[in-house]
């Protein structure tokens, strides 16, 4: 019998991933033989310079993009080669997203944004889910803003709404793409602490793409990608050490 990703405690896994854009002499290799597993309750930061392939890796892991070769699992389900409709359902039900900016649907108020994944499924949150969402809204301090539109919120508040949405449906996996890229340092710390809590207390696997060593220092694990390959896979590091790690790459070029 084959080993299932969950037997290894993994909520997401990719093996021998390659991604090439274009063909012939003009072909660009974004990913070159990447294998990675993300464990339950683990907050993983993917670091790397611009153009290293870290965003492509996240997009493929989240079912937003497809690899050229290699295999991808979310939970125990292999999503490699899935059609658009099936991938859409996976994203809706199994994955949460926090992007750098433009995270919220501008026409919906805060509450509707938070429950949007449920709405897409054509259902209302049940009592347990409702209680969970209410506790998220309270702990994120969004209660007084439920009727506000995204345009009426500050950048930090918008990110908190996105986090409430990403955690609301309790997906096993949350992807965050430079979630603190547009925030001041204090708000950044709050947002990162929230993500760390989500992993530690609620057992969600969190994958954060960032090039900020301070942000990465909040993670349990730091994976460094350079030129489409994983070049380092470390545990928790200080911001200074994380910075050294990436700077070392630059020097080695």
């Amino acid at each position, binding site marked *: 019998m084959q080993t299932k990703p969950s037997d290894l405690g993994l909520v997401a896994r990719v093996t021998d991933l390659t991604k090439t854009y274009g063909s012939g002499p003009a072909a660009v290799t974004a990913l070159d033989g990447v294998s990675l597993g993300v464990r339950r309750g683990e907050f993983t930061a993917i670091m790397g310079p611009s153009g290293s392939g870290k965003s492509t890796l996240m997009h493929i892991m989240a079912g*937003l993009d497809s690899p050229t070769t290699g295999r991808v699992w979310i939970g125990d389900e292999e999503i490699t080669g899935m059609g658009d*409709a099936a991938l859409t359902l996976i994203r809706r039900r199994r994955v949460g*997203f926090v992007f750098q900016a433009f995270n919220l649907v501008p026409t919906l108020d805060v509450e509707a944004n938070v429950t*949007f994944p449920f709405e*897409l499924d054509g259902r209302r949150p049940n009592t347990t889910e409702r209680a969970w969402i209410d506790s998220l809204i309270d702990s994120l301090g969004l209660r007084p803003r439920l009727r506000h539109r995204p345009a009426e919120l500050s950048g930090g508040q918008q990110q908190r709404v996105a986090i409430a949405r990403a955690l609301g449906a309790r997906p096993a996996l949350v992807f965050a793409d430079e979630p603190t890229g547009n925030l001041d340092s204090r708000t950044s710390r709050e947002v990162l602490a929230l993500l760390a809590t989500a992993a530690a207390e609620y057992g969600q696997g969190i994958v954060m793409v960032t090039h900020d060593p301070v942000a990465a220092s909040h993670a349990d694990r730091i994976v460094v990608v350079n030129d489409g390959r994983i070049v380092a896979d470390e545990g928790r590091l200080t911001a200074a050490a994380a910075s050294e790690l990436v700077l070392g790459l630059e020097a080695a070029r």
Partner: protein
Amino acid sequence: MRTRLRGHAATVLVAALSAAFGVVLLGIVEVLTIAANANPVVGDLGSAGIMLAILAYVFMAIAIYVAAIVTTNTVATIVAGRIREIALVRLLGASARGERLRIAREGLSAGVLGAVIGTAAAWLLLAMLVLVGEGTGLLPAGPTYAFVTGQMAIPVVAVVLTTWLAAWVGSRRVLSVTPVQALGAAVPTASEALRRGRRGAAWAIEAVGVVLLLLGAALGQLTPLGVLIGIVGGICSFTGIMIGAPLLIPPVLALVGRLFGRDPAAVLGTRNTLRHPERSARAAIGLVIGVALVTMFVVAGMTANEIVMQRMAAEWGTTAPLDSTLGTMMSILAFLVGFSGVIAAVGLVNTLTVGVLQRTREFGLVRALGLSRGQLRRTISVEAVQLAVTAVVVGFVLGIVYGWLGAESMFGSSQVNGLVAPVVPWVLVLGVVVVAGVLALAGSLIPARRAMRLVPVEALAVE
């Protein structure tokens, strides 16, 4: 000079349609005149010919007017999409006035191109009509049907000039673009709130219009000359409604939006039309005018017919079978005015398409969050149908009121039993609702297909 036609396809099409319509109408009048002259029994068309020519010019003017409104709104939509670009050239030292002139010049080029295409298409159509007419014997053989006349320069020049003017009026927002907008990271979401001055002007003009309309109808009970005051009132009141459209249209949109239920795709679609009241009003107003005009002519005609019938019944105890002739005439009139509706529909589809392009990022987000392709298509269709139905409903209400007041102003003095209720052709109502709905759905296919081809990752990366 940097003159481009990017994004002006709709303007070219609208100019071509209205120019072609005008040229075809004049051509038909010319062909009929030649045919009549060739017939020894009919001979000169005389006053009937003059009537035909006047009708041709009236409908041509309506079409060009609607086209100008549509183009104004198309250009305003283009400008809204180019804010960043305009801000950048302003930052680099271009003057606001210069940028506006450049957009007006683009409008002029689009108008010229459209007018040329339209005229060529019209001549082709007329030549075919003559061939068919001669073949079937509807047109007497013998004379050469040289349908090209010098008068045809009138619609062509009018279309070019109004397109130019419309582009100038539609580009006024360029003046309020500040260079610093080029630097802002935020997508421009400024809700174009209706300025208080505009709101006041809309109310004032509307009030004057309503008073004159009622005065006309009241005077109409004594003399047919009431219609002259009524016409002035109608023009005033309609102008008021056009200026105030961003106030008037959204509540109706919200109401119509409820018909689509709470399905998430429907909610995304209906909410979006309310996000930019001005843009929605711009998209809808052309269709409102088209539907209002058709309804007005038909309701006025049928109500007038009812008044005359009642009078005849009272005086002679019989009703003459006027119905069928009048019915045919009404149908032809409705068709001629309906052409303006087609021009308006082009505007609606264009606004939808541009709206989809401008929301690439939003669509990328909702697709990433799990909105399926089918749901995205439904979102866009719901938006289109909601706009079309709203425009049709508002157009009907206006058309019925204007048509009825018009009939009362002109024929009120012939009434025998007091006021006659407006006669509403429900078949026409149903027909227009269905046609507008289908047209909007079909039109939304173009933007929907574009949106469905979006790859979420790429869409999210778009500025």
